[in-house]
């Protein structure tokens, strides 16, 4: 159950001007990135991460949460105005949002997207706040073998849903785990794969890998697209907005999308895109006018946007209670917590319950700022969709380089960042997904510790992984998700659905 005394204490933690200002700055940056096609939420968080080194933990997490929440909504602005999702989460919004804009109802679509995002965000954060203590208490039962089994489950599911095959996802995860072994061995302290480079004794820094993996490939791909023909952006009339009564009349859609999105958000690796499509599907399934879907339905926009924003709160639950990130962006948030000396996992709620609650409270603050900033962006939507990407991407590259250098003050990190980036680009050309690579890298040290600890306890016997009901359950779920992934890819091979999932 929620401890209201601790909740009040955590409220005091966030009621500082620097925390609130950081959250607001995060919302502004998240919105800017969200409305810029090609700049994803993960890139926004990664680029802001070096700035958080100079902040206290509360302000740092406030900044990153502001970005996290807003970038998801921001992607819908370009999705509606110019049929280009600003972030992958907004892909389902294009289906009905853009036809509405073509009909001169852009303002209605944008307002519906904003209000649905806000409502679903608030509802799902309440859900997360309620379920977190239960999950955290359950997580205290976990030993080394159980944590290992959860990581196997998380990696399997992430590998299965990222990219176009489970095999490629597992290969990417293997590389991620391997890169995580660079540096000192956690037990004996002997060097591994450092090749005499002293800067690698502490391993590759999380920021070096994430910036390289997500920023450099995007910039290289954008360089290619810059030379291709561009359609001129034409934006029609914005039209009138939606009434409060109309907004309220869609409450069943918010509830259904929120339920589906919260469930998907709490599972490791799924993230906002599947939740958006689930929300859209549920809205269509229960609609009185299903024939309008695809031709400009406000219900479709509400379903998709409520779906993708309802993952925000629940995605933080596995990250903070088990130390397993819900998606790539929460993986970066987890990295930020580690940088600030906090260890996400079963003990976090025991040791710093006020911090945990403050994270959820900050989500509420970020959502309120989203509503304010989003309303302003809607009135400027005609202009904001014309971001000069030929200037933005070079600036992002320079910022990424400075940010990576600033972490440890060594050019080795910059070289490693570009190396990972070129490798990431080659992976991208064959649709070998980056998400399992990044998450395996982040979970690598924990994975190794728990695996070796389990095997040392059991004197090398693998029985330890099948002696507990919890680890057996998670290993069975991992096998089940792997089987389901292989089956689905086989059934959908060559179909339009497979292409949508793959994209």
């Amino acid at each position, binding site marked *: 159950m929620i401890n209201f005394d601790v909740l009040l204490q955590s409220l005091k933690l966030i009621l500082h001007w620097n925390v609130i200002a950081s959250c607001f700055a995060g919302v502004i940056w998240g919105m800017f990135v969200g409305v810029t096609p090609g700049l994803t939420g993960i890139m926004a968080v990664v680029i802001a991460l070096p700035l958080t080194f100079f902040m206290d933990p509360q302000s740092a997490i406030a900044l990153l949460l502001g970005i996290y929440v807003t970038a998801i909504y921001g992607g819908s602005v370009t999705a509606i105005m110019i049929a280009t999702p600003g972030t992958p989460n907004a892909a389902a919004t294009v289906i009905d949002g853009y036809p509405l804009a073509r009909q001169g109802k852009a303002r209605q679509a944008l307002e519906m997207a904003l209000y649905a995002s806000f409502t679903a965000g608030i509802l799902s954060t309440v859900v997360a706040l309620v379920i977190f203590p239960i999950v955290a208490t359950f997580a205290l039962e976990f030993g080394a073998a159980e944590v290992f089994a959860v990581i196997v489950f998380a990696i399997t599911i992430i590998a299965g849903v990222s990219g176009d095959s489970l095999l490629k996802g597992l290969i990417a995860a293997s590389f991620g785990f391997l890169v995580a072994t660079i540096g000192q061995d956690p037990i004996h302290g002997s060097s*591994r794969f450092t090749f005499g480079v002293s800067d690698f004794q502490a391993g590759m820094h999380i920021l070096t890998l994430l910036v390289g993996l997500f920023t450099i490939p995007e910039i290289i791909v954008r360089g290619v697209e810059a030379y291709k023909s561009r359609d001129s952006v034409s934006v029609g009339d914005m039209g009138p907005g939606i009434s409060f009564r109309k907004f309220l009349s869609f409450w069943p859609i918010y509830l259904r999308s929120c339920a589906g999105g919260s469930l998907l958000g709490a599972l490791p690796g799924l993230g906002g895109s599947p939740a958006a499509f689930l929300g859209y599907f549920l809205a269509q399934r229960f609609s009185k006018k299903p024939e309008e879907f695809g031709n400009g339905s406000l219900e479709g926009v509400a379903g998709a946007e409520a779906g993708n924003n309802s993952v925000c709160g629940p995605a933080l639950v596995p990250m903070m209670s088990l130390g397993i990130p819900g998606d790539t962006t929460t993986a970066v948030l987890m990295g930020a917590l580690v940088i600030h000396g906090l260890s996400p996992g079963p003990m976090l709620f025991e040791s710093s319950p006020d911090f945990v609650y403050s994270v959820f409270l900050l989500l509420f603050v970020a959502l309120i700022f989203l509503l304010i900033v989003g309303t302003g962006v809607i009135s400027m939507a005609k202009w904001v969709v014309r971001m000069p990407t030929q200037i933005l991407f070079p600036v992002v590259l320079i910022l990424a380089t400075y940010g990576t250098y600033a972490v440890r003050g060594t050019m080795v990190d910059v070289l490693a960042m570009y190396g990972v980036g070129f490798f990431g680009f080659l992976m991208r050309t064959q649709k070998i997904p980056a998400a399992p690579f990044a998450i395996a890298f982040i979970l690598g040290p924990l994975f190794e510790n728990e695996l070796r600890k389990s095997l040392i306890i059991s004197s090398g016997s693998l029985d330890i992984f099948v002696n507990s009901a919890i680890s057996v359950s998670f290993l069975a779920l991992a096998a089940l998700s792997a089987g389901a992934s292989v089956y689905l890819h086989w059934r959908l091979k060559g179909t339009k659905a497979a292409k949508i999932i793959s994209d």
Partner: protein
Amino acid sequence: MTSELPSPMPTVELETPTRRGDVVAAVLCLVVGLAGYYLIVPAAVYVPSKVAGTANSPAFLPNVLFLLLIGLSVIYFIQSLSDYLRQPAQGRARKMDWVLAGGTALICVGYITAIYIFGMTLGAALGVTALTYYFGERRPWVIGTIAIVLPILLWYFFEKIAHVLFPTPWLGIMEWLESSHHFTIWMA
């Protein structure tokens, strides 16, 4: 009279995985796996003799992961090769796309080299100039403004506010500039 030559192979986007590319990627993964297991781990991981071959060994997880990579790569290779033999002419990315991608990569390499030679600040000015031009910006005043304002802002933030020490370049131009009295007064 115009005549169109039949294209021997359809072109695809750079980010579209091709069957041929899958075969190449599988072979590369296999090579990395084998090299890692047989060459890199023995050479780059020091294993105390008393824990060799146990789960306590520093080489335990790297070995397990390289073996896993070998296994997965073999399956990937068989799968991609059988797909390729069944229908090889799926498409190939345009050579021009690869050249353009290579161009961006080359500018990145040039930017890193410029950091070593001229330092972070002037390197950034050169890097952002080259990249904005390459990405299609042609207005000199826009390129010039970014090339001047961005590096100076970053220099001021990282060196003066965050106290991050930048690497010393081969040509210490920024150090020379900073030692100039007028420059310091202007920046202040």
